[in-house]
């Protein structure tokens, strides 16, 4: 599923959160949104699944404006793994993952997909053994896997991930991004870890204070200059001898606005 952002601006109250964002995401691509806290990554994701309406511009998925899609139709096309979605009720893991099938159910409860999407999602996220545990008895990492399983069960052609590797240990970070990568669907993820972004994403978009400052392949976006400008930290870039992808080494804090010597 392709995504097109046409001059999207978002204003909440008097604050301009996003300014004139224009970008396209090709069908099946895995795309990373990078930027410091408050740069607008989460807001951009929320705008794509129309939890927020843009004050100007439009978001198109497969050439359809998301503003014109009924909530249920939208949920059949776009799955979201949110940072904190309030899933704290005393439900079992299986019940939480079953929630992901909601958009595919009719009123009387029958799932329109004959496959065991819930079982497959539990297995793919590595939480089959936790299926009958209560969600409030899990560790942060286990919980994040369960929420990922719910998004997998939703089986949408577009998946949005908001800092999906939070609470996960190193192996689990790779497990999670790998699962979504292998799905082959379009994935847009807000990421903090530049090395993970370099390893998993086809393209990256760099946000700073609500504006898109760079778009391109990891090689084009992850340069010492751009990292220094946007994150305020000195950086050196080499090739990771194990993967052949870019490896970013971060140095000391820079004075805001300056570039590395």
């Amino acid at each position, binding site marked *: 599923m392709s995504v097109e952002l046409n001059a999207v601006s978002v204003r909440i109250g008097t604050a301009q959160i996003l300014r004139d964002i224009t970008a396209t995401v090709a069908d099946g691509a895995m795309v990373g949104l990078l930027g410091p806290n408050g740069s607008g990554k989460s807001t951009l994701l929320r705008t794509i699944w129309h939890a927020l309406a843009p004050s100007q511009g439009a978001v198109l998925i497969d050439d359809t404006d998301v503003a014109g899609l*009924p909530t249920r139709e939208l*949920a059949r096309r776009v799955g979201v793994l949110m940072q904190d*979605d309030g*899933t704290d009720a005393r439900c079992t893991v299986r019940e939480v993952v079953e929630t992901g099938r909601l*958009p595919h159910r009719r009123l009387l409860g029958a799932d329109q997909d004959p496959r065991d999407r819930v079982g497959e999602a539990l297995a793919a996220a590595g939480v089959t053994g936790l299926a009958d*545990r209560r969600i409030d008895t899990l560790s942060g990492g286990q919980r994040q896997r369960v929420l990922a399983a719910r998004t997998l069960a939703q089986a949408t052609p577009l998946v949005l991930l908001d800092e999906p590797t939070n609470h996960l240990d190193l192996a689990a970070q790779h497990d999670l991004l790998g699962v979504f990568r292998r799905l082959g669907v379009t994935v847009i993820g807000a990421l903090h870890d530049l090395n993970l972004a370099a390893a998993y994403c086809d393209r990256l978009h760099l946000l700073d204070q609500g504006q898109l400052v760079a778009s391109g392949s990891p090689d084009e976006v992850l340069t010492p200059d751009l990292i220094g400008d946007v994150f305020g930290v000195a950086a050196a870039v080499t090739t990771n001898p194990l993967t052949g992808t870019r490896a970013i080494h971060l140095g000391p804090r820079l004075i805001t606005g300056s570039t590395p010597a």
Partner: protein
Amino acid sequence: MTTTASSAADRLSRPHRLRGWMWTGAGLLVVAVAVAGILVGQVTVPVGEVWQVLATHLFGARPSARGMAEQIVWEVRLPRVLGGIVVGIALAVTGVVIQAVVRNALGDAYVIGVTPGASLGAVAAIVLLGAGSLGITAAAFAGAIAAFLVIIALARRGGGWAPGRVILSGVAIGYLLAAATYFLQIMATPTQLQRALFWTLGSVAGVGWEDLPLLTIVTVLGCGWMLLRARWLDALAASPELARSQGVPVGRFQLELMGIAALITACVVSIVGGIGFVGLVIPHAARFFVGASHRRVLLESLLLGAAFLPAVDILARTVLAPTELPIGIITAAVGAPLFIAQLARTDRRAPA
């Protein structure tokens, strides 16, 4: 990934293992309470005679019990017990729904203005119009719906909709309506006051066969609809944002739920008055027994409500016999300690 169940996790999931037992227990409780409700009262009717009366009506057996027994069992106690069951179900289930909408453990029919609105309507009809029972019912229904609409209007903000504001406006409007109700009671004559008081605190004593059809139809349809929506309720109770991401049209759904809850409650309170605490305490008990999934919580609340209200009604007519107590006094007196006991238990386990 391996599952390491700590002992804490074991303790937390214990209610789940007891689940099967909870269903059977609640079901048996309903039957036991109903039987007791028919047998117990100011006048002792021998079990044999009670059976005769029921057999006459239900199986067309040759009538042998007559007069007093017939009158007490068939005309007074049975409709009263059945009314208690239906009212208990209605209040418990609407409590579950309102708590899911406002996402607050304090949600019940008082919060969405229905009960205070109905009370004001009924008391105004008694004191100002000297209305008869049909007039009181109509005024209570009108008051309930009017108060609900005002609170919904206040909770709407711009094009959006904020369930959190329902509680705020509900509490404020509730106080206002209560003030008006008290004012009218002060103006009332002693006879009017007696009727008004009984009405504000609720009673199923007056429920007759003629009240049951409408009450039952509204409750069955309303509860059935809620059960069909149980999965959406799960998502909504977790968070509106999550529900939306799963395709639930959140604003419309919240209005639909509150509208149905308000209609059911308005029907109930217009017949039996403002019975408090049932909608608050039963959903919590149900969640404690069967977990958080709304299919189970709705069904367990239905059973517990069906047992709780007729049981409390037995107390209402026996504690100070021959004087009848308004049932609202007992639901609060029994419900509040149960609620607090449960609160204490939940607190020790995990933040609720």
